[in-house]
């Protein structure tokens, strides 16, 4: 237990350093960027005096280092900044949209794990068979397919074509919160889930397959066979047990990255999540929001990595936290 506390303390310090680094980079990019929030807010016709007054109100006329320091101070308290264009704090913007992205990622993750690991196992148990070649081929197809293309394709087939024949199972766009109507929530998410799941599952299929094939060549799998253990049990309790480790790493990274926003899928399906917020704040040059989202995304990735490291300890007794 002491191990875990010490590990977390060390990782926390390291994470803060990384986040500080990221914050500094985005902060200075904000100032180098040829964009003047005060002028945007004041409007095209505003006098120079008005712009200056706004700038003063926002504290943008203070020396750079003073602003940097107050920015860091706010960030350290979990305040991601204020979106002048939306007249709201970035945190409340994020809060509004986090539910959508979390729903999308969690549901998609369940599907891609099942499909990916399942297909990988199928290929690994019958290497070079027809099934193996077929799953590898399909995996490669989805792996190399651009997300928007698959998304549009699913929309075309499962929404538009079905709609034409009078079947409206899957809505083409929009989001209904889980708490409002669980069925509509799921129906609205099916196509986006499939989109991220099919593309991501390809990686998991290949990873699971190669990892399992490696493990199958291990001496201890021969031992299990020599013990007279049944094939399914060898596959799950012996092979998969060892082969799952790289899959877990990949899973942590993927989920962590996607929680920061699933840009393309959210936009294709009109889901008001973090990914859409990213796109809209970039097009509107809403820099505080961009900075806040970048910091948040970095934090997700860092936290995901810490969780993966802790999970490792439970997966492999030989691994020490340090």
């Amino acid at each position, binding site marked *: 237990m002491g191990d875990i506390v010490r590990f977390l303390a060390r990782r926390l310090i390291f994470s803060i350093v990384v986040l500080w680094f990221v914050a500094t980079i985005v902060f200075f990019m904000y100032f180098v960027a040829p964009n003047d929030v005060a002028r945007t807010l004041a409007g095209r016709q505003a006098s120079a005096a008005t712009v200056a007054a706004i700038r003063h109100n926002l504290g943008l006329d203070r020396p750079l280092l003073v602003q940097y320091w107050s920015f860091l101070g706010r960030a350290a308290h979990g305040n991601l900044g204020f979106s002048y264009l939306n007249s709201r704090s970035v945190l409340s913007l994020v809060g509004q949209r986090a539910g959508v992205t979390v729903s999308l990622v969690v549901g998609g993750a369940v599907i891609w794990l099942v499909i990916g690991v399942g297909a990988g196992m199928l290929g690994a148990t019958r290497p070079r068979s027809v099934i193996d070649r077929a799953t590898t081929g399909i995996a490669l197809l989805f792996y190399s397919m651009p997300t928007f293309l698959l998304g549009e394709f699913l929309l075309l087939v499962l929404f538009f074509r079905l709609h034409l024949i009078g079947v409206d199972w899957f809505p083409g766009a929009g989001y209904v919160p889980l708490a409002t109507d669980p069925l509509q929530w799921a129906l609205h998410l099916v196509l986006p889930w499939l989109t991220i799941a099919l593309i991501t599952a390809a990686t998991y299929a290949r990873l699971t397959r190669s990892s399992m094939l490696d493990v199958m060549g*291990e*001496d*201890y799998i*021969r*031992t*299990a*066979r*020599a*013990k*007279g*253990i*049944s*094939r399914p*049990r060898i596959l799950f*309790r*012996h092979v998969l*047990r*060892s082969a799952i480790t790289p899959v877990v790493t990949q899973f942590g990274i993927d989920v962590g990255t996607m929680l920061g926003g699933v840009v393309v899928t959210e936009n294709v399906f009109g889901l008001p999540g973090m990914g859409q917020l990213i796109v809209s704040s970039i097009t509107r040059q809403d820099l505080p929001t961009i900075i806040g989202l970048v910091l948040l995304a970095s934090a997700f990735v860092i936290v995901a990595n810490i969780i993966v490291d802790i999970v490792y300890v439970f*997966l*492999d*007794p*030989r691994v020490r936290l340090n």
Partner: protein
Amino acid sequence: MAAAVDEPLLDVEDLRVSFDTIDGPVQAVRGVTFQVGRGRSLGIVGESGSGKSVSTQAILGLLSGAHVSGAARFEGRDLLQMKDSELRKVRGAGIAVVFQDPLTSLHPLHRVGWQIVEVIRAHTDMNKKAARARAVELLDWVGIPSPRERADHYPYQFSGGMRQRVMIAMALALNPRILIADEPTTALDVTVQAQILALIKRIQREFDTALVMITHDLGVITEVTEDVMVMYAGQPVEYASNRTLHYEPHHPYTAGLIECLPRGTSATVSLKPIPGTPPSLLNVPAGCAFHPRCSFAMDLCRTQAPPLRKVAGGAGHQSACWLPTDLVGVGQEASDRRAAAARTPMPVDDGGAER
């Protein structure tokens, strides 16, 4: 099932194993025949790559992608003809295997107690608690201190010798009729080797388990087994009792192995190889496979493979060599006699030699 009383426990006949590789078929085992009786012990000796492990693993169906032919009757039933579900009942229960490297042969992510319980429950309907108690008992029997606590440890928490004891405990879990030990001491320190051999001898004494001991170390054979089969390039070249093998070997390969054994030392020194290397199994030389390395090779040896013949050393002594059947022994004197015989053209005295 109704095995005749005089029938051997394990009867392997003309076992052949080949693998398809990119370079062509590798003929790893080319006609191995041997028997092991109830409670008896057989040593299989030969250099690395001579097909010792492949022979025994083929019998249990542990080689994937190998072409296996011949017969391997265990208690009267041919293992090579069995369905996988039947064979699974034999593996681990009727015939158990201890492999060379206990570190890689135990699952690194499962507790050792779990691994023993697993084999027990795969073959019996014992409940978890009883199986666990049995696992602790086995760990105790093979000499693991505080077995109750150790059962919950992972393989990496054991030393090499202790790990091999765990492997042995796992192999003994169901009182197998045959224990196959495939170089069980090769990966271990010298002092630990002796302890493991002592343990294996104790198993034979106390449980009347038949033993097949694979090794490239003749010293190990000397200590543990009654009979010996010497293999070269996938074929048996000599069968003898342990005693005959050491004092009256017939095959020049066996004699060579004996002569480079340091006398008087025990189990521990591995043999220094005879000059040259074994042939590639992709392309085995014509005639006797050993002839390129044999100092007594005659013209006949280069063209015709010698069959196994009864030779002078005693009951059951057989050798696959064209030298006269009464020409047995080790040392300079025997070597001189072999050289003399090799210079004298001799009649082929075996009617069944032509193939």
